[in-house]
């Protein structure tokens, strides 16, 4: 792997980890909260956004591929 490629790989890994933590905590809170709890909707938003971010991260071209406009 080239140097920029390696840096990108590490960035991906770190970013995925951070998103995984957000997703994980949001999931735990959703499991624990009462279904009628008003905060559920807010947490659901956090969870969905983190999930979308994870999908966006996965769609990023891997190292070696050139990013398409």
């Amino acid at each position, binding site marked *: 792997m080239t140097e920029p490629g390696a840096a990108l790989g590490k960035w991906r890994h770190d970013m995925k980890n951070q*998103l995984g933590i957000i997703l*994980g905590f949001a999931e735990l809170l959703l499991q624990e909260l009462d279904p009628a709890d008003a905060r559920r909707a807010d947490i659901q938003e956090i969870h969905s956004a983190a999930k979308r971010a994870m999908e966006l991260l996965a769609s990023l071209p891997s190292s070696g591929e050139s990013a398409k406009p």
Partner: protein
Amino acid sequence: MSENRPTLLAIDDEPGMLALVERFARGLNFNVICHPEGRGAIEHVSQLHPDVVLVDLQMPDVNGLDVLKAIREVDPHCNVVLMTGHASVDSAIEAVRLGALDYLTKPLDFDRLRDLLTTVEKGIERREALMKIDADVAHQFEFQGMIGRSAAMQDLFDSIRRLAPHVRTVLITGETGTGKELVARAFHKVGPRRDRRFLTVNCSAVVDTLFESELFGHQRGAFTGATETKIGVFEHADGGTLFLDEVGELPMSVQPKLLRAVEYGEVQRVGSLESKHVDVHVIGATNRDLRAAAAGGQFRSDLYYRLGIMEIHLAPLRDRREDIPLLTAAFIRDAAKRLNRPLSGISIPAERLLQQAPWDGNIRELRNVVERACLLCEGRMLSEREITAAMKTSPRMVFGPSGSETGAERAELEGDLLSTVQRTQIDRILKRVGGNKTQAARLLGISRRSLYRWIDRLDRVEAGPSRSED
């Protein structure tokens, strides 16, 4: 109580990930220890004794697979689960090959992690339940402090029940550590004299010249130093039971007098012309072949035949291996209670090691090994590691069959063996028993004198080479 909860060790360089795993596993009643780097975790794993380890595959200081390898070297039966953000077929195959319990991808699938942790917890519960069953069965098969469901032991218990009300003399033979004194006590407790005295004389511990006085007493002035009239153990045990341990070591000179005491109940104090009549049940015990000794002229044959009217032979532990799990369970339960440790079971490989060991020192050796292992164990489950360590410091495992070495050789060997044991271990054992050297020596399977010698030697080593005065 946190000590009774299973322990999860989480290793990840990402603090948020550790916090997430900790929060989740605590909810499943796990005790969670977090480590931010692999190398430090490897160093601590032997002290932490986790039931399950969750380790990140990619960490800056060390690869998760290397952590897995290192953990399995320290504790081959520890459950290790790898987690990774970049799953690959190669690393998954390698993880399974190295014995990982599972391979999880990030973001964590909590349902799968819950299933895994539940599996680990159920496994521990199963081992603990088995252990409890063994201990309960041991209790059912206990007779006067002896445990055994083997045919040999059941026959022995039956014999004691049948014979104890009738016999006056018994000779108990068997290898060292087979429980001869327990059998003697059982005869006394089951017999009609249970409320009377039970006295023990270890014939190998009495100086030859004092034997007669010890057994039969002496009159004042009977010999130099006899400033007071003293009654012997036979008179003292009148109406009760006298247990002569290591009776094969009895000097030839005393044997005719013992025969008279056993045969006619007649004893004569040293220096007295008068005989006294006593009514004593005599139980002798020996690990020697007294029949051969009598045939060879080293033991009086008339005394042998008198004592051996009822001969009870105790089977060595290797001939009744089916009793080992029950004995082990009972010893662990006792040690846990006495040492106030949360021990509740033994791993299958550790149990297998105990099952297959030669046990030249019989039950006494098994008990000492189990006790030492309990002392070394930081967790709730005795593992192969502690049993192996405890066996390594067991003199009989190293010295070979009993009786093959002289006292001096044995002391020397004990010294050599101990020199391989680290000071920290000795210190740890001493600390656990509150500095009680007698108890520490017993747990180490050595004499108190050897322990003192060892501490002395270590102190000299630590003080460095002696300096000559300028």
